[in-house]
């Protein structure tokens, strides 16, 4: 009996260790750490409640889908990641029901807008983008620690590098950030850009923090970003170009999310093409699902 109990305990411990060693387990830990550090700022403390609501909503929806589809696992670590990201981006002043709706949109998008078993869009990015246009939901990106003293960016960088290392996405993160910085430098030199959203702003706190947060925790989502290094570089560059174009032309909050969404569609298109579909057919397949 004792042997059996010991074996079971060892198995449980091994399972726990395995979970926290997975990319999603890693991301969950780092995002929780960022949430705790971000909550040091009193104004953002209520954001923890937003995180709890979004994580709970994501887990409930994913569990319901898992039960309906008779999956073996009901706990969705992906749902927890989506909820954490949404909660860390949404403003702490967001009403609870809006948080639930935004989370539901994001989580359901991965079950509906997909090719095969892989979702097209990053769930958190899609939820935030749709919510921005439908409800004009405010986003504070408080998880990027922009409200804290500037040196706190070290937490974001260390947490981000750990996650990017774990999911093996350095090429696309470097391509994105490199493209982002170079394009802003070019825009500054050419004196282009919206008067209220200068290229200089995008290189400074708090805007640059949100770009780093997006690059480390949303851009690197394995199902919605390419695995091959060459594709990763293209993916990062596409997201950077689209993001900066939107930023320069329109400003606002949506430029990173629009860039990410376009990158996600490009990834879905290339995946479709890799399966032997002609380019135009592959694109129309993806757009058909999106529409």
């Amino acid at each position, binding site marked *: 009996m004792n042997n059996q109990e010991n074996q079971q305990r060892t198995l449980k411990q091994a399972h726990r260790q395995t979970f926290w060693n997975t990319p999603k387990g890693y991301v969950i830990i780092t995002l929780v750490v960022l949430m705790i550090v971000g909550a040091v700022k009193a*104004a953002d403390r*209520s*954001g923890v409640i937003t995180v709890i609501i979004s994580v709970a909503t994501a887990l409930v929806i994913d569990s319901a889908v898992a039960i309906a589809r008779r999956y073996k696992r009901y706990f969705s670590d992906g749902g927890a990641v989506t909820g954490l990201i949404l909660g860390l981006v949404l*403003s*702490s*002043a*967001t009403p609870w029901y809006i948080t639930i709706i935004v989370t539901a949109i994001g989580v359901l998008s991965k079950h509906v807008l997909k090719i095969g078993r892989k979702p097209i869009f990053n769930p958190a990015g899609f939820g935030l983008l749709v919510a921005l246009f439908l409800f*004009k939901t*405010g*986003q*504070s990106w408080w998880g990027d620690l922009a*409200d804290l003293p500037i040196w706190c960016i070290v937490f974001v960088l260390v947490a981000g590098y750990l996650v990017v*290392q774990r999911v*093996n996405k*350095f*090429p696309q993160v*470097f391509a994105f*950030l*490199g493209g982002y*910085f*170079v394009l*802003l*430098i070019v825009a*500054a*030199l050419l*004196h282009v850009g*919206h*008067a*209220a*959203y*200068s*290229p*200089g*702003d995008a*290189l*400074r*706190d*708090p*805007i*640059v923090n949100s770009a780093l947060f997006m690059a480390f925790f949303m851009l690197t989502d394995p199902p919605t970003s390419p*695995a*091959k*290094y060459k594709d990763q570089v293209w993916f990062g560059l596409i997201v950077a170009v689209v993001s900066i174009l939107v930023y320069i032309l329109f*400003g*606002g*909050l949506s430029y990173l999310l629009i860039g990410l969404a376009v990158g996600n569609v490009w990834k879905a298109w290339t995946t479709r093409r890799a399966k032997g579909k002609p380019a135009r057919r592959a694109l129309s397949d993806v757009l058909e699902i999106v529409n």
Partner: protein
Amino acid sequence: MAPKLGNKFVALCTVALGAMYTTGYVITENHDPVSAHTVPAQSGQSASTDDGGAKPQTTTDSSGNTGASASGSTTKTASTSTSGQSQSQSTSKQKYLDGTYTGSGANDIGTVSVAVTIKSGKISGVQITQCDTHYPEDYIAGLPQEVVALQSYNVNIVTGATKSTEDFAEAVYEALSQAQNPHYVA
């Protein structure tokens, strides 16, 4: 899955990115509105917005505005436009001169501009005429009423919209600076 990149390569790319970022930061420093920006003087002092503090909100009394003038800024467009009422009608008991005054507040999230209307020496209305911030105007939509109720730019910070509130308060402060009655006796 592709083999992971070596640590040396990651370090090299990080250094390259750091160099790009620094270059961009330096290049944009001169024409960046934030670095040249100064918040309204409080009790005769001016302060930078860099610390992110809620400068206009920390003042205890709006009477501290007396005699203070808004500091120059590349992004500010403080101007006075009269609404047809004669400013000479004011007395020394009126803190502000009647009319409509405009002001702008800007920081790294964008710009908020307001038009403040003074009637019988009191703030009778505040209108947000421009909100080019990264956050929706809805966040600060309740602040104009607060200014009228408090008769001061010293509004409470809206949770989750600290910097937008600062922009708004700064814009109102600037407009009220224009409206100051030079003959006012407290």
